[in-house]
């Protein structure tokens, strides 16, 4: 059946519904593009035969459907990559970077640049980091507990803290958010 590969792509993304980015399925896309090329060429028969018009229309619909599926796939991936910037910061973990194709990486860099330019334009001279504090914070400092040995960790005023397993620290919120996302620290609510 036509368009099955394209729907596969959509299903693949749909399966990972929580915003994870699966590897860029270069193979499937190539196959879909080949299918589209084949359909297009089949449609390029010389002359117009009245009996063939439904077939031509059918092939055309398949082409359009494939096009829609691929653009949806690419667009959804871009949305996910954009969310990654907000989640992980400007440096992505290598595992995720392997899942992106070269063009997507390029797009990510451009997005980063635009976001940075925008952030710099806010808030006076130094700019404002709007990727911090996605939810309104209740306090400047939070208590965190170290879940694994992480070694030394430097905070803004230059002081270094030794993160040893099961030690508890009371640190500025913005420094801890990264580590909490990585699972090294745990926010203690008492």
């Amino acid at each position: 059946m036509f368009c099955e590969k394209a729907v596969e792509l959509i299903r693949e993304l749909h399966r990972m519904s929580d915003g994870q980015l699966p590897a860029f399925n270069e193979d499937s896309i190539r196959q879909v593009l080949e299918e589209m090329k084949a359909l297009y060429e089949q449609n390029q028969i010389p002359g117009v035969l009245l009996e063939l018009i439904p077939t031509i229309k059918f092939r055309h619909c398949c082409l359009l459907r494939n096009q829609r599926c691929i653009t949806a796939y690419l667009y959804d991936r871009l949305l996910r990559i954009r969310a990654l910037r907000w989640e992980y910061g400007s440096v992505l973990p290598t595992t995720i970077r392997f899942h992106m194709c070269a063009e997507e990486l390029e797009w990510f860099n451009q997005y980063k640049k635009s976001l940075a330019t925008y952030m710099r334009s806010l808030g006076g001279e130094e700019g404002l980091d709007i990727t911090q504090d996605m939810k309104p914070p209740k306090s400047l400092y939070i208590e965190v507990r170290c879940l694994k040995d992480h070694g030394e960790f430097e905070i803004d005023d230059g002081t270094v803290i030794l993160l040893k397993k099961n030690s508890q620290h009371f640190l500025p919120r913005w420094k801890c958010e990264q580590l909490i996302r990585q699972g090294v620290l745990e926010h203690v609510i008492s």
Partner: protein
Amino acid sequence: MFVADIRKEFYDVVVNQRVALLVSSDIDALCACKILQALFHCDQVQYTLVPVTGWQDLGTAFLEHKEQYQYFVLINCGVNVDLLETLQPEEDSIFFICDTHRPVDVVNVYNDTQIKLLIKQDDDLGVPSYDDIFRDDEGEDEDADGGDSGNESDGSSEPSGKRRRFDEGALERRIERQRAKREWEARRREILFDYEQYEYHGTSAAMVMFELAWVMTKDTKDMLWWSIIGLTDQWVHDKITHMKYVTDIATLQRHVSRHNHRNEDEENSLSIDCMRISFEYDLRLALYQHWSLYESICNSCYTSCSFKLWSMNGQKKLQEFLADMGLPLKQVRQKFNSMDMSIKENLREVIEESANKFGMRDIRVQTFGVHFGFKNRFLASDVVHAAASLLENVEKDESATDNFIKALDCLSRSNIERLHLGIDLAKKKLKAIQQTVASCICTNLILSQGPFLYCHLLEGTPDVKLFSKPLALTLLCKYLLKAFVFSTRNKRCKVLPLIMAAPMDVEKGTVIVLGIPPESETSDKKNFFGRAFEKAAESTSSRTLHDHFDTSIIELKMEDRGKFLDALITLLS
């Protein structure tokens, strides 16, 4: 140096700094730590909390953090040895020590710059005066004095005669000075020996921290409850005398009435979910509200020893007791919460009356209870038992710091499930203690060695893993001694202290040895085993590890047990 104004000299100093908190592993320290953490959260003082279980841990933690932190707060550790000598800190490190261990080491008392003691000076300390121990003029030069006295002496015609008289005079004075110095040193040794001979405990660290909070009017009911738990921990683990406990309860009672008075009103009564602390003159039965009354009576030290529940006679007496109160066995054996309301109403008075008839005059004790929500009612001793069981949990193979964190968590009101888990563990622990005591008494495992009683738990004993931890072993020891005193006919043995040994680490082949003072009504809880253990270990060169902050608890190699005991016997006879 003692801190005179805890707010100005401690809190105001650290409030703008980053602090390292080194906290020992006992419930009082946990409570003090919680109070201090709450204060630090209010004022956004950045801190790092590191649990420590012994001197080695303390040393390691200090080494790891000394580069980054200038201010260290030590809770329930570090005051009874020369801290500067042990840790070798830099000139600018400052230590604030809030510790219940006494005697406070004299160097810590008289150091003006680096060590600040968060201890009240009138706290029954008896520190020797400065001049008795330290002498500034150590390097007295005898030759200089010889020259000096030369000027004072009378003139004499012959130079040689003059010199001879000078020499005699100078020699005499030198001998006199040396004799005085020797006398002073001997007196100093004696004073220090008397001062450091007995180990005991002072005011709870949690109470000191609560007072700090109160002075800053930042105290809350949570902090008050934690200070109550800290004090109750000292009482449950037999660290303070009954007099001191009652005095401290009175102090806390004033705070409790102040907090209660503030909120409760005819029109504005508090929501049921708010925390209410109330003074209770409650029964001395461990965990009875979370257990069945019968189990609680069987497994509480006081009742079990008074009835002698390890014997058949004792069991009969217990049945008589229950019959005397008119409590049907069926009711008494089911969960306390499911007992009939009619029975629960006057339970305390009924039990007190019957207990008096059976010779238990102090079955009720002054304590506090907390109450929040419809389901949650706890007495202070319940929480102490639960937290202690979590702190020394041997069921899963978790590290000491993991258990510390769990015990610390269970003290918060939002972690009730953890508290309930702790209560279950505590029930198991109390049952294990009861069974071990029963078997020790029945098999006469306690031997009199002359100046003390001795009991050794063999490796195959059930639940012996529980007793490789200091707090559990302390409870067992106390219980065992009390039971022994009740069960023996030998009058002399009743006033002996008890030393107990239990396997600590099977692979390394070590035992944990613990000594407690003799059991008596008016005991001042002063323990001389710390020094005794040290001396015995030295004289026999046994392989011991004096790692615990309480010097009366040590780790000893199994093979050296015999000679160590012999040395102790000779030492103490």
